[in-house]
C-alpha cells in the first residue's frame, strides 16, 4: 500500500495551505483527491492531520481554537461517513456491553472498588424505522441500576430471564443479579456460583446456555469448564480433562456443543452431553501470545459450515475457520493496526449478525475496525479495513483522547451496520456507517 507516500503528499499539501492561510480549503481539496477513494487511507490522513494541527495549536497561541478545528474536521467528515452517530458519556468507563433484550443493554464499571451496573434503554430513534424524523428521543434511559463491590470484567445475560451473571476478573466466583422488572429500578444480587474446582485467580469466562433451563457455562481454564444450573447452583457438566491452558473465550454453538478458545490460540470443541468428548484444534505455530475468538452461529442451521470462528491474536492477525475443520484456516489476514496499548485485556473480535462476512475488531487502540472477510485468502496477507470508527479518539471532553483505547464493542442484532462501542474514557458510541457501495450508486 502506498499509504505512506500519500501521507507525505498530504503533509506537503497541508503545510502549503497553512502557510497561505487557507488551511480550511485543504479539507475540500481532499474530497476531490483520487486517494479519497480509499476509506482507510483517507481516515488515516485525517488522523495525522489532526496530530499536526495539535502541534500548530501549541506553537501559535496555546489556545484551544485549533484543537477545536480538528474536532470540527472529524465532525464535518462524520456527516458523510455515518448515517447516524450517537455519543454518550458514562460516569465510569465500561468494558462490557451486553444485550438484555431487544431494546436494552447492560454496562458496568471496572474500577477496583465500587462499581455500578446499569441497564440502559436504547433511544426510540434507534428502533423506529418509519417516521424517524418525528422521533426526537435520542438519549439513553437508565431503567435499572445496581451497585457492585467488585469490578465487572465479564457480564452475560441469560436468555429468557431477567438475570445477568458477572465476574470480577480476579477470582472464579460468579455473581448472579436480578435486573428487575417494571416495579423497581434497582438491580439486586441474588446469588453466587462457584467453580467446582477453582484453580486460578485469573477470572472466569462465561457463556449462557442457549436452550433448556437457565444455566451458564463457565471456567477460568480449559480443565475447569463447567455447566451450572442457575437457580440451584448445581453443576450439570464438567470437563474433567487436565488442560491447564487459560481460557480466553467461551461460547455455545448449539444446545449442547460449545467452543472454547485458549489464550494460546488452541480451540476446543466440547459437548455437554458427552463429558469425555473434547476435540482439540491447535493454533499451529502462528504468531501472537494472546488469542481470543468470535463465533458466528446460526441456531436454525445444522450445517457446520454456517458456524464461522474468527480467532484474533495479539499480533493483530485474524484466522477464520468453520466447524467442518477448525485446524485449517479458511482465510486469514494481517490487520492494519498500530497497537497503542500493550495490554491484551480489551482484545475483541465479533461477527456482524446481519451482514455477511463482516467482522469487527477492537482493543488495540482507540478505533473499532470493520473488515470484510470475503476478499481474504487462505494465505496470510495484510488487508485494509472496510470502515474505521475513530470517534473515541475525537471526544471534545477534557480527557486525553489520543490515548483512548476501545474496551469493547457489540453489533446491533438486527440493524446490519449499527455497532455500539465503549472506551476507557467512559464514552459509549452508537454508530451506523454509510456503506460506500450503496451510497455511490
Amino acid at each position, binding site marked *: 500500500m502506498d499509504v505512506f507516500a500519500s501521507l507525505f503528499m498530504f503533509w506537503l499539501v497541508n503545510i502549503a495551505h497553512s502557510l497561505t492561510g487557507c488551511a480550511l480549503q485543504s479539507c475540500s481539496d481532499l474530497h476531490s483527491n483520487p486517494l479519497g477513494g480509499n476509506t482507510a487511507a483517507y481516515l488515516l490522513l485525517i488522523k495525522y492531520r489532526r496530530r499536526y494541527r495539535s502541534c500548530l495549536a501549541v506553537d501559535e497561541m496555546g489556545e484551544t481554537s485549533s484543537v477545536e478545528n480538528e474536532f470540527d474536521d472529524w465532525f464535518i467528515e462524520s456527516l458523510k461517513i455515518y448515517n447516524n452517530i450517537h455519543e454518550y*458519556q458514562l460516569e465510569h468507563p465500561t468494558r462490557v456491553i451486553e444485550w438484555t433484550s431487544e431494546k436494552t443493554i447492560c454496562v458496568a464499571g471496572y474500577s477496583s472498588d465500587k462499581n455500578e451496573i446499569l441497564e440502559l434503554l436504547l433511544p426510540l430513534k434507534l428502533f423506529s424505522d418509519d417516521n424517524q*424524523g418525528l*422521533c426526537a428521543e*435520542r438519549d439513553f434511559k*437508565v431503567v435499572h441500576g445496581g*451497585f457492585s463491590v467488585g469490578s465487572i470484567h465479564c457480564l452475560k445475560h441469560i436468555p429468557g430471564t431477567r438475570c445477568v451473571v458477572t465476574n470480577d476478573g480476579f477470582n472464579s466466583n460468579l455473581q448472579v443479579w436480578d435486573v428487575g422488572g417494571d416495579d423497581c*429500578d434497582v438491580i439486586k444480587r441474588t446469588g453466587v456460583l462457584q467453580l467446582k474446582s477453582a484453580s486460578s485467580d485469573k477470572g472466569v469466562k462465561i457463556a449462557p446456555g442457549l436452550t433448556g433451563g437457565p444455566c451458564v457455562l463457565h471456567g477460568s481454564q480449559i480443565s475447569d469448564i463447567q455447566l451450572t444450573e442457575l437457580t440451584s447452583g448445581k453443576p450439570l457438566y464438567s470437563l474433567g480433562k487436565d488442560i491447564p491452558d487459560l481460557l480466553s473465550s467461551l461460547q455455545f454453538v448449539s444446545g449442547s456443543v460449545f467452543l472454547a478458545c485458549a489464550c494460546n490460540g488452541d480451540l476446543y470443541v466440547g459437548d455437554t452431553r458427552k463429558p469425555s468428548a473434547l476435540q482439540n484444534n491447535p493454533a499451529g505455530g502462528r504468531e501472537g501470545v494472546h488469542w481470543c475468538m468470535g463465533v458466528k452461529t446460526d441456531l436454525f442451521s445444522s450445517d457446520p459450515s454456517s458456524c464461522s470462528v474468527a480467532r484474533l491474536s495479539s499480533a493483530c492477525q485474524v484466522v477464520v475457520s468453520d466447524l467442518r475443520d477448525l485446524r485449517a484456516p479458511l482465510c486469514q489476514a494481517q490487520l492494519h493496526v498500530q497497537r497503542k496499548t500493550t495490554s491484551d485485556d480489551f482484545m475483541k473480535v465479533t461477527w456482524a449478525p446481519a451482514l455477511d462476512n463482516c467482522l469487527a475488531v477492537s482493543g488495540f487502540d482507540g478505533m473499532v475496525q470493520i473488515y470484510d472477510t470475503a476478499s481474504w485468502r487462505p494465505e496470510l496477507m495484510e488487508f485494509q479495513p472496510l470502515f474505521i470508527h475513530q470517534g473515541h479518539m475525537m471526544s471534545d471532553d477534557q480527557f486525553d483522547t489520543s490515548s483512548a483505547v476501545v474496551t469493547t464493542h457489540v453489533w446491533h442484532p438486527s440493524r446490519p451496520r449499527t455497532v455500539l462501542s465503549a472506551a476507557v474514557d467512559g464514552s459509549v458510541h452508537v454508530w451506523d456507517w454509510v456503506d460506500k457501495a450503496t451510497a455511490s450508486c
Partner: protein
Amino acid sequence: MAREVRCKTVEEPSLVALAKTHAATPSFKNKTASGSHLSNVHLCISSSCFLSGAGQDVGRSCILVSIGGKNIMLDCGMHMGFNDDRRFPDFSYITQQGRLTEFLDCVIISHFHLDHCGALPYMSEMVGYDGPIYMTHPTKAICPILLEDFRKITVDKKGETNFFTSQMIKDCMKKVVPLNLHQTVQVDDELEIKAYYAGHVLGAAMVQIKVGSESVVYTGDYNMTPDRHLGAAWIDKCRPDILISESTYATTIRDSKRCRERDFLKKVHETVERGGKVLIPVFALGRAQELCILLETFWERMNMKAPIYFSTGLTEKANHYYKLFITWTNQKIRKTFVQRNMFEFKHIKAFDRSYADNPGPMVVFATPGMLHAGQSLQIFKKWAGNEKNMIIMPGYCVQGTIGHKILNGQKKLEMENRQTISNGQSEIERCEPGCCRLSLEVKLQVEYMSFSAHADAKGIMQLIRMAEPRNMLLVHGEAKKMEFLKDKIEQEFTINCFMPANGETTTVITNPSVPVDISLNLLKREMALGGPLPDPKKPRTMHGTLIMKDNSLRLVTPEQALKELGLNEHQLRFTCRVQLQDPHSDPDTLSRIYTHLKSVLKGYTIQHLPDGTVMVESIVIKVSSSAEEPNTKVLLLSWSYQDEDLGSFLSTLLKKGLPSGLSSM
C-alpha cells in the same frame, strides 16, 4: 443524628432549660430546646404529568418552600397539555387560609419557559398577589413576549375565555423585581436570595434562598455542559440545607450536543443538496441563535452557496437582546464580541416574503415557532406540498397549533382562510364550513429535533458535588423509577435524598448553628475549676443555665438565672442503700469506711462527724444493721444533684466492700 435529637427535645419550648453546651464553640449544635428550628419544604403544586406529543416531556413547575417561617413560591408554570383549570396550579391550597399576598413572602421565576412562568399573570392578577416577583433581567425582558404570544393563541385563535389579558401581563410585569447574577437581594430583614448561572436558556438562573443560617437552592432547569451560545451552570460550595433539582432528565444519559447538531446539519445539507427548501420555525429568542451560529459555521466550512434567511424583524430583535445580555452568553461569544458580534451573520440575511417563491434551495428561520400564525405559517403553506422540502421543528408546540399537528404525523390539515383569520373569531362562525377553510396536504418532510439543554444523571451528580447540599430533593420524577438514583446519591455523598410525589410535603430537619452568649462569670468560674486550657479544635463540656428570652440565648451561672427570674433554688438529693458484710460494730464499720475513703479520695474534704455520719463534700454516709444479722451492714448514702458524679462513684466503690487490712481507728 438530627432525628434522634428531635425526639429528645421538649415539646413545649420552655423559657429556662438546663443545657450542656460546648465551651470552645459557643454554638448550640447538638441539643435544641425548641422545636422551631425546622426547615419545611412544602411541595404542593408540582406536577409530574407528561405530554406524549412527539416524545416531548412537558410538566409544570410550581414549588412552595417554607424556610425559617418564610414562604416562597418557586416558579409558577402552566401545564401545556390541558385546556381547562388543570393547566394552572391549584392555589386553593394557599388561598383557603387567606390571600396569596399575606401568605407568600416572594415569588421567584427561574427562566422564561412557559412551564415555569406561564401561570404568573393568572396568579398575580386573577388569583391576586401583590408581593414581589423576582426574575433575572433577560427573563424579565423575554417572559412577557412569550406570555403574550401564548395568550394570542389561546384567546384570539382558540377563542377561550377565562384567560388573562394583555393588560394583566403588563400589570403582572410591573411587580417584577430584576435580579443580577451573584447579587444578594434582601427580600426583607431575614430573607435573602441570590441568583446563579444555570445555562439552559438565556437568563436561566438557579436561586439560593437564605433565612438565618438555613438555606435552600432551587435549580430550575439547568445545563452542565456549555453549548454554542451559553455557558455551563455554576454554583459555589454554598452547602445548602436542601438542594431542589428537577429530575425529568435524571435517569437519562444524554446524546452529545455534537451529534444533535450533526443530525441537524445533515438534514439541512441533504435537503439543500437535492434542491429543496428548509423551513425552521423558531421563537425569536433561544435556540434560534444557536442554530444560526451553527449553520453559519457550517456554510463557511463547506463553502455552501444556498441562501439562509431570517424572518424580518427577528434578527434585530434578537440582536438587541443578545447585545443587552451579552454577559449571559458563553465565554467564547463574550470574548469575540468586541471584534465580531457572533449574532451578526455573514451568510444569514433578512427575509422578504417575496423570497418564498424564489426557485432553488434555501433555508429560512421564521417566527413564530409553533406555526400558529405569521410568517412561518405563510411559508409553510407555500412549501408544504413539495416532498423535496423539509420543515425542522426545533422546539415544543402547544396543542391545537399546526406545529403540534404535523409533529403528530398529520398529513392533511384543515386550515382557516387567511381572510377569516384577520377578521377574527366571529367571522369564522358565520362562514359555512368549507367555504372559508382550505385543506392542505403535507408532503414535505417533517423533522423534530430537541435542542433543549437539560442536565442528565451525570449533571445532577456534578451539581451536588459543586454545591455540597446536606439534603437532596428531586422533583418531577416517578419515585419508583428513581430508587437507584436515590441510593446512588445517598451512598456517594452520604446525604438524604427525597423524592416527594405531587402534592406531598417533605419536612427536612436541619441542624442550624445557634449562637449563644456566655456570661463572663460563668467562664471565669469554669477557668477557676482548672483543667486543660481551652482548645478551639476540641469540644469541651461546661455547665450553665440557658435563658431564652427576647430573641436571644444566654448561658449564665445557675445563681444568676435564679436571681434574674426571681426563683428559689430547689435542692435535689439522691439517696441509695448499699449492703456490706463487715463483722464489726456499726461505729467501727463507719470508722473503717472513713479510713478507707481517706486513703482513696485524696484532696477531698472528708469528715467523721460526732453524730455518727461520715461526710465527703455534700455526701452523707450512715451505717445501720439489724439485730438478726449484725454482720450485714446497710449503708445509707445521700448526695445532692451537684455532687452526682462523686456520689455515684462512692456508691460503686462501697459496693465492692472494704479492704480487710483496715484498722478500725
